[in-house]
């Protein structure tokens, strides 16, 4: 089902909204190659997670509007962002952690796709299952980070990821209405929320490895 989407901003422009003259992937590469100061770590994680929201919104918006080529391009860029986030995790916790994290992260994107399909086809059962899968996923993600870092309690992380899931759900629901003002307010809210994950994650990593992250 196609939904009119006037004034839709393409994924490339969304990435540009990150500002500061660089892309999140370039930041991730910098972190991986040369290590990172604590401020760089916090900035890098925020940029990666916000990029995730922008690209996810681009993909779901294109999917709901039936723009297949745009959806594929946005989905490809979103997966590139997932790989960069995994690399950032790996830069701290090693290659094994990176390899374990990526499929786990990709899993929640799959559930978001399921929810989007449910919205597009007006299939409440599919929507509800996707939401249930996403809620269960928050436990997995919380457990992963808690296993990596004792400063990140599983339940706290799970609740933060649940909020991420719900704000992304709000984006998809808004996109389905065709209300652009509502859509972009939801995108801003979802992107802003990612700081609530990135900031404590960065702080917990710095606390775990103080010798690797000097303050500037």
């Amino acid at each position: 089902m196609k939904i009119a989407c006037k004034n839709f901003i393409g994924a490339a422009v969304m990435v540009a909204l990150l500002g500061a003259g660089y892309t999140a992937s370039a930041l991730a590469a910098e972190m991986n190659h040369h290590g990172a100061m604590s401020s760089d770590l916090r900035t890098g994680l925020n940029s990666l997670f916000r990029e995730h929201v922008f690209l996810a919104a681009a993909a779901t918006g294109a999917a709901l509007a039936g723009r297949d080529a745009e959806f594929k391009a946005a989905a490809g860029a979103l997966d590139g962002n997932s790989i960069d986030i995994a690399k950032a995790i790996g830069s701290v916790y090693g290659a094994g952690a990176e390899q374990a994290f990526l499929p786990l992260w990709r899993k929640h994107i799959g559930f978001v796709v399921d929810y989007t399909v449910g919205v597009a086809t007006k299939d409440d059962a599919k929507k509800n299952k996707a939401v249930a899968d996403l809620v269960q996923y928050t436990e997995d993600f919380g457990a992963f980070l808690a296993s990596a870092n004792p400063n990140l309690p599983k339940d706290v992380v799970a609740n933060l990821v649940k909020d991420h899931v719900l704000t992304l759900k709000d984006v998809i629901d808004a996109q389905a209405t065709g209300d652009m003002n509502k859509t972009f307010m939801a995108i801003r809210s979802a992107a802003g929320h990612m700081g609530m994950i990135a900031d404590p994650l960065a702080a917990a990593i710095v606390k775990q490895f103080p010798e690797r992250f000097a303050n500037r």
Partner: protein
Amino acid sequence: MKGHWRSAAVLTASVLAGSSPLHAHEDCDDIPQKQRAVVASGESVGPRSQPAAAVTIQLFQYQPGQLEIQAGTTVTWVNQDDIRHTVTLGTPERQEDVSLNFPAKGATASYTFDRPGVYEYFCDRHPSMRGQIRVQ
């Protein structure tokens, strides 16, 4: 070459959590004999003189991911993640009937591999988690 798991798999599962009286025990050896018999589904894990090996489940990985052992070795897995994992024989596409369950952090389970072969396994909750036991 695919070996065969014992039916009614030999399990020694203990959940080390909260107020459990087993909280301080990290492996089978410290479990009282009577309790070990109860949780092992009536089957023994074998005499203490049997060769033994260990795999840690941590950060959604089996560590080591590949293990080479001699036939007759008892492998013990211990879950260090705060989430349910399994050790399920086979692959997600071709799953075998035997699955060891690790419901929470601290849970352990053991199995004795009697026959040579290559045993693939995975976690049924997190299918990207893969491990392999090579029995000589």
